[in-house]
Structures are given as C-alpha cells and as structure tokens.
C-alpha cells in the first residue's frame, strides 16, 4: 500500500512540474525514478524511451505505467498513471472554468489570439519531426535523400489520396498499418 502511495506522489510530482510536454518530462522522471527511488536502472529507462517511440500514448503515461508495473504490478501501473494525470485534471479544469467564464474578456482573448498561430507552428514542428522519422528513421536534420524509405513514402502518398476521398481517420490509420505490413513483407525490406 505504501509503495502505491509513493508511486502516486512521485508521478504527481512529475506531472505537476512537467511543462512543455513530451520530452520535457524525461529529466523529471529520471530524477524521481532512478536517482531518488532506484526503481529502474538507466538501461531500463532508455528502454521506456524506445518503447514510447513505438507505442501509443504520451511518454509520461508510458513511463508511469512501465515503472508502476515493474515495481508493483498492475495496481502499481494504475497508481502511477493516476498520479501523473492528477495535477493536470485539477489545473486544466480550473483553466477551462476560467476560459468559459471570462474567455471573451479582451485581455484573455488577446492572449489566446496570440497563442493560436503558435499552436499551428508547434503542430507543424511535430509534423516535420514525424516526417523525418517516417521517411528517414531520423529525429533531426540533416537527412540523406538516398536513404529515403521508399515504402514509407508510398504509404504516405496513398494515405494522402485516401484522405482527399474523405475516408475516416481510424480507417485510414488501420489501413496504413496493414499496408505497412503487406508492403514490407512483400518487398522483404526492413522498416
């Protein structure tokens, strides 16, 4: 029981101080999980990072689940995950309440008007990152054009056309997964 509480508090701390999302949570998790409690080795920590590149979900949730399940089984993963989202629930609901109460007040409108194009830019940045990862299996520029994964480009183009045909999002994702399985298997190329 004590260990569950410890997991909850530990990951609530990570959730509370993890601002800027994604990779920003890694040093915090490292500090709590490796250095403070010794729940994971550095090697296992790097493994979580690798898993998070391939599995759904934010890296913070993935880390919480992985650590919790290693330390205390399924109750541990639930406790750690609940801890991680707890500060978010409280703070975001408070902000949501303020937005719907005062959202149209000039100054708050101004702030949100300033943030809107910024959000577009941040999504664009994620777009570039994921494009590099998909086509070249690299996270940052520069890339070697000769090393382009042609099958990845093909699936990308096919999805793009399917998108213009107004196919639903979920169907698109499932069929691009199946396409990946088929194309890589048929050509014998390794993704």
């Amino acid at each position, binding site marked *: 029981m004590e260990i569950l509480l410890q997991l909850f508090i530990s990951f609530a701390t990570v959730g509370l101080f993890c601002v800027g*999302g994604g990779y920003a949570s890694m040093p915090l998790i490292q500090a709590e999980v490796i250095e403070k409690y010794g729940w994971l080795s550095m090697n296992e920590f790097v493994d979580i990072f690798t898993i998070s590149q391939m599995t759904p979900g934010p890296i913070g949730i993935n880390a919480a689940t992985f650590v919790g399940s290693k330390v205390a089984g399924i109750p541990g993963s639930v406790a750690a995950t609940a801890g991680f989202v707890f*500060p978010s629930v409280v703070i975001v609901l408070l902000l949501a309440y303020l937005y*719907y109460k005062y959202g149209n007040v000039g100054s708050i409108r*101004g702030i*949100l008007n300033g943030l809107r*194009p910024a959000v577009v830019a941040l999504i664009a940045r994620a777009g570039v990152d994921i494009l590099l990862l998909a086509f070249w299996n690299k996270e940052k520029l520069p890339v070697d054009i000769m090393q382009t994964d042609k099958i990845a480009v093909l699936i990308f183009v096919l999805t793009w056309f399917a998108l213009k045909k107004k196919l639903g999002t979920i169907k698109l994702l499932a069929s691009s997964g199946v396409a990946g399985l088929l194309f890589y298997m048929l050509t014998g190329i390794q993704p």
Partner: protein
Amino acid sequence: MGEIKETSEKLEKAVFKEPFSYSKLFISTFIISAFTVGGGFVLIPLMKAKYVDEYGWMQENESLDLVSIAQSAPGAVAVNAAIIMGYRLGGILGTFTALLATVLPPLITLTVVSYFYDVFSTNPYVRMFLKGMQCGVTAILLDVVLNLMVKQVKKKLALPLLIMAGTFIAAYFLKINIMEIILVDAIIGFFLMRDPQYN
C-alpha cells in the same frame, strides 16, 4: 455580463453533424489514443479532425483555444487536451470519459509490453505494422497543418504570421524551451492582439 452572453451564443453556433453522446466520445477518443503513435501534437489534430470536422461538436477557433490552454498547463498535452475537450463536450463526466479513453490504451499497452518487452521489440511484423501506421499519421498530420496554415495566411494579417513563423523557428531551429516561447506569444497577444480582427 454582455461578454459572457456573447461567448455562450458563439459556442452554440457549432453545427452538430452527429448528436453528442458519452459512448461516442469514449469510443472515438479511445481509438484515436490507441492508434496514435507520437506525442500530443499528433493526437490533437486527430481529435480535431474527429470532434470538429467529422462530428461538428465544436468550432475550429474554440478547439484551438482549448489546445492553447492544454498546452499552457503542466502535464502531457494529449491528456490535458482530453480533459478540456471532454469538459467542453460533457462537463465533468465528459472530462473523465475522455481522460479514461486517452489513458487506457497506453496503460493497457505498456502493462502488456513491460511483460513482453523483448519479444515485442524484436518482432518484425509488429514493426512493419507500426511503421505503416506512422506514415499514415504523418499524412493526416501534415494535412491538418496545411489547412490551419492556409487559414492563418488567408487572414492577411502580419502579426499572426510573424508569431507562426517565429514560433516555428524558435522551437525547431533555435530549440528554445516551448514554455518560454508560449509565454512570449502570450505577452504579444495580451498587448497587441485584443482587436476582434484577430479572433
């Protein structure tokens, strides 16, 4: 008072293409979360595609406001977006519906993966399927980005374009901390973008 009324009138303009229900919110969010590999800004465009474009449950501007709020709060952006969009669509119950639907897929996946990590990471078929999905997500994400950019450009206003370009350069090339960039953009907005033409 007048302003609050105006807000609620604006919000009601969302044209529902599908009636709202908690089960629909749960199922669509669960599937998006389960099939989306990559961080919050990959998940958010998919949520927008579903709730705004496909279901018509809220308006585009409003959804971007909610994403801004989600981004400015601590925690994972995807989780925050689920909390606030769930709240907008179905109150506190909506929050927990969307939150549970967002958290459950990685919770289940990672619990399983933590037991079978070695088998999972070396299985070539799993990797092929995930790689294909990654390419699909890339196409969807870029489509959303292009549409949003075109809309900003069509406004023909200098400030939003400067913020968009500046934020991208600062985040991607200069690698400045995202919270610091957001803070600067918020200050610019606070002082210079109150005029309704920027709404």
